[in-house]
């Protein structure tokens, strides 16, 4: 049951896996294995989502309305009917934005107090 009436802030901070999945879905719709590959590639293999973690997160993200499942494959060339594709929802985008904002503020505070070097 999507929870569109929830404010994005209520879901923050996002679990690492969820944020990674949101990022993976930012540029295009993907199926599960594609998300796993994307996360591994972007992090240079440092973060590897297991299938269990991935689908447990997707189950929750579907309930929270962060992602949507597509009825048809977005890739006409794909012959594999078994694959299920996921897309970032509008709410998901807002939540991801809120999370980025939160991290930004945090980063800025760390810099301002001289905890880390930066502008």
């Amino acid at each position, binding site marked *: 049951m999507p929870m569109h009436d929830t404010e994005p802030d209520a879901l923050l901070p996002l679990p690492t896996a969820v944020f990674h999945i949101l990022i993976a879905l930012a540029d295009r719709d993907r199926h599960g294995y594609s998300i796993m590959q994307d996360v591994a590639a972007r992090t240079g293999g440092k973060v590897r989502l*297991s299938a269990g973690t991935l689908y447990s997160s997707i189950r929750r993200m579907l309930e929270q309305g962060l992602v949507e499942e597509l009825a048809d494959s977005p890739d006409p060339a794909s012959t594999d009917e078994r694959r299920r594709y996921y897309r970032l929802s509008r709410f998901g985008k807002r939540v991801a934005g809120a999370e980025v904002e939160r991290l930004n503020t945090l980063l800025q505070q760390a810099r301002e107090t001289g905890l880390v070097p930066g502008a």
Partner: protein
Amino acid sequence: MRSNALYRALLYCYPAAFRHEYGSQMVLAFSEELEHARQTKDRAGAASMWFRAALDALTVAPKEHFHVILQDLRYAFRTMAASPSFTAVAVLSLALGIGANTAIFSLWNSAIHASLPGVDKPEQLVILSDPDDQGMWTGRLSAREDGDRPFFTYAEFQQFRDNGNVLSAVMATESNFDSWQVRVGDGEWEQARGRLVSGGFFQVLGVSPVLGHVFTAADDSGDAPYAVISYSYWQRRFGGRPDVLGKALGMRKTTLTIIGIAPRGFFGETSGEQPDMWIPLSMQPSVLPGVDRLHDKSPKKVMWLHVFGRLKPGVTLAQAEAQMNSAFEAGLESFYSGVLTAENRADYLDQHIRVRPAARGASSVRTRFSQPLSALLAAVGVLLLIACANLANLLLARGAARRSEIALRLSLGASRGRIIRQMLTESLALAIMGGLAGLATAYLIHAALVRLMDFQMSFSLDPMVAAFAVAATLGSALLFGVLPAWQVTTMDAGEPLKEHSRSATGSIGRMGWGRFLVSLQLGLSLPLLVGAGLLARTLYNLQRVDLGYPAERLLLVRIDTREAGYNAVRRDTLIRDLLEQFRRIPAVRSASFSNLGVFSGGNSTLDIQVEGYVPNGDKDRKSSMDVVGPDYFSALGVPIVLGRGILESDRPGAPGICVVNAAFAKQFFEGRNPIGRSITSVEDNARMTCQVVGVANNARTQNLRRDVKPRYYLPAVPPFDVEFKSPIFLIRTATDSAPVLAVVRQIIQRADASLPIISANSIEEQMTPLTAQDRAVAQIAVAFGTVALTLAAIGLYGVLSYGIARRKSEIAIRIALGARPARVIAMVLRETTRMVIAGLALGAGLAYAASRIVTSQLFGVTPQDPLTLALAIGILVAVALSAAYFPAHRASKLDPMVALRSE
């Protein structure tokens, strides 16, 4: 592929719903990733994938399960909140069922099963005496018929303590539980309970005081006017103030100093009792004056102690027993050396010790209550079954109401397993709420039971009781939850739609289960009703048992001449003087006195030789005996059937005479005329002969249940009254005896203000404790029977109301077609009768089986008593029919137009 199959197997760790939804995707993703690792020859990567998959099964899978449970619970609570009256009824009846079970189990557990609370390593404790007995035996021989010794003397305890071959530590306690008049400082006299214990008591039990110190072995010799008080007495009497140490406790003519406080939750070596204080055994002469219990004069022993010890490491019970017995027998031989002859040798020396585990401690209630408590436990178990059947019925009815919702979920693709799980979660949530409420109920019921049964124990949620409560809760959830869940999910998804068009006749199958459950409840109620009836009749019989004398307008007053320092001659004068004054009270018809009185708990047995009687065995040489004052029989109201009673003229110097009871005459004279025959009592080497001058009717003065035993009565004439130091006056009044008691007290006070009155009761008061346990058990059984029947009636009412509501249109059509109200009522009652008959058939078998459990509790009624059975059936049928009448009456008043329009 093998790896795929293995991964698929791992997926079984996840909830079914999750597996169905994402399982194939997970297998796909996993196999692709594995394939990639294979192609790149990344063996470490493949290994790490398997590792992560296994880790997921241990971490992610439980989280998913938790998520489902949480979802189900949320749903369950929403459902419960939506029908608050259903929830209230369910939780209440479960609370009652689980609460009653937990309370009785807790009682059963602490009285019969549990180890001594607050004692260090109780499993190492052993007891040499009989843990289930308490009292004091005085005399030469006091082993049981099988030679086992129930208690020990102080000297024997010292021998065990000092001869430490097999036991690492030994202590002794007074087997009786005492009640004392005490006063704190100069305060008022008040009641306190406790017992005398040896110096090693606390060390052997491994108990350290919370404040002050405890006794030591040194307190066994010499003056030790100290008391250690229990934690609860400290809290209750002294408000837990630490300055209690050093306070003076006045007791009789001595003053004790409080030196320590026992830890919380420690009640001593006996279960079922909560002593206020412990006092060293060496204080016996001042605290329990009278018989010197610390020193024996051969060949008489005073046996009154339980002896406990701890086995030395590596010593078995059998080894300990053998060792202790050889030392014990040597002790007996030297003690009795003055009186041993070739003939009596076996009699004296056939005594032995049984060494038993004592983790559960001593208990006077264990044997007495083990059967009633087991029977009550069975009864509450049945009660819980009835409550579960009732709930199952309610859930069935509610399930039927929710059928369209469930059908919708089924047709939307929910699996049956998922819905069963959901419904079981709802049952579980109900049961857990009922269980929690049940704990509170258990606390209340426990308090009531303890008061009823005169136990001294508090409700504690120890691991055994907690485990029982949890098991009862989960068991109930399964019992009442499975059938309705299964029932609802056996239907077709499309059924409810069709159902609607069929409602003119209703669904027979579903109603069948409801009927079955009602029959089951009625059936289970019957044994409870029969049991309650049998126990109530037992109580009735016990209260009306023919004593052989009127059980009213009789006062029993016991004084202690010993403590007041009377010798034999002064005592004789005092007693006769008091008797004279009692008789002059206008409301007094007659008065006398005796050594044993009536239901005082004491008894004396003597070895006798009866003229013209040849004994067959040991038992035939013994008779019970009482020493009585003049006019004893007329004061008590026991008819003399032959010869005469005991008269004023039976004074010192007159020939020795005695009166026997009918049981004595029957056993020892076997039809011959007893008058003029002689009875000789043999004690040690002294013989005393008396001539029988009369036969009195049998009188029950010892107990209510057993037959009257042979007894003979001697006049209270010196030197027969050497032990006769606390006589019991029997005062028969013409009117209510209560006002006379005050006058009697005044007379005693005037005669000697220092004369202690040990007890002063009416016969009714004296007899109340005799039936206390029977009364308690009967009351509890009746309460359970009533609750069971009420639940069954509610179940019946519910099923009928529901059935009639579903068949409204059928009934309406019947009425519209001219059926008279009486016929509609008859139709409903016919249905009820079928359920009742099925229930009775089931219940009769159960009642027959259950009656065996209570057999030993019964008195004057057989377990298969037809009257009780008939009465129980009658009550059950009457209650069932009245529960059925209201829905039937409502149905007969249906307005056809309204009923049909509402369809």
